[in-house]
């Protein structure tokens, strides 16, 4: 796992929020993933420019009763798994975003 990664959504996906969940489909495998409420918060916050650690502190820990250490550990595991399926990009440096980035449709 990259230490203090920057995270961005892949462009080869389709995503949509439904209630507190987010459904994400990989365009390369047509595999469907469902993100729960906390994973959705992280999914919506990743922008390639904000370190994951900052997202966890400002978005997850601010909303949920969880210690930063545990939240970060969970978040790192999540983004690593999503990256393995090609849904997220991880980098040690900020990730430039294309002009049109796949976002969660309302």
């Amino acid at each position, binding site marked *: 796992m990259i230490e203090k990664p920057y995270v961005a959504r892949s*462009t*080869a*996906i*389709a995503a*949509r929020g*439904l*209630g507190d*969940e987010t*459904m994400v*489909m*990989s*365009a*390369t*495998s*047509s595999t*469907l993933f*469902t993100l729960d409420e906390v994973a959705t918060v992280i999914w919506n916050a990743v922008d390639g420019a904000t370190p994951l650690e900052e997202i966890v502190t400002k978005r997850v820990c601010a909303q949920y009763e969880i210690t930063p250490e545990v939240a970060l550990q969970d978040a790192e595991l999540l983004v690593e798994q999503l990256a393995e399926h090609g849904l997220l990009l991880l980098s040690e440096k900020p990730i430039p975003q294309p002009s049109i980035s*796949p976002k969660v*449709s309302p």
Partner: protein
Amino acid sequence: MATLTAPAERSEAIVEIGGLPIRLRSDDPSFVRLIQMRYAGYISTSVEASFDFEIELVPHGIDAGDQDLSVRWDSGRWLMERGDFRAEFNPSTARGRIEQTCNPYSLDSVLRIVHTLLLARGGGFLVHASSAIRNGRAFLFSGVSGAGKTTMARLAPPDAALLTDEISYVTRSEDRYFAVGTPFFGELARAGENLRAPIECVYLLAKGLENKIEPIVGAEAVRGLLGNILFFARDAEFVKLVFDAAFDFVSRVPVRRLTFVPDTRIWELVI
């Protein structure tokens, strides 16, 4: 003495599914006759077609092995390839070509793929489901192989018009979804009737010990439907179109889980 030989005349047939007439040309009249028989009920008598495909029959050279299907967008055209065929389709020119051996199954696969690509632009899709029209309304019975699609088709009452026992063709028109008959069949080995009706409901099939209908909403409904939609193309834009279509469909058409015992009483429950 020189003789003039007229070029071989190409035979053709226009196969119209879902209101999309596709002209299929081949220099082998016997293969065109095969097409006319295979797609009986879907052969257009019009001379106009929206899309033109040239079919080149190859006796050898393409393996009929189990090579995985590949559908990809490259330089302005769709490239489709499997062990038994190679095909391309240019949406801008509405033209394509198919290289295959002389069998109807390869063409059937290409047509299914081409229709998924064409349907996606208008918010439609193909889905693993049998479907039938009764009292002017269409019902879809969706599931994976073995879930009971063909069983539901076989159990249909005489006044139900069967659209397909395998692949349902869903189109969108003016905020409504319609099921359209197709010649794409499964175990029933019979083409569906060439009819169209607004979709009343989609049933996700499950075999059980009793007949039961349960409404499914939200993410579960989308998951159930998306799991059965045909995604041939590994292409981000195409996947997004179909993904969005599934969400829109679920917001407009009821989705229910149908647990059933395979006998005719089930049709009393669903209609």
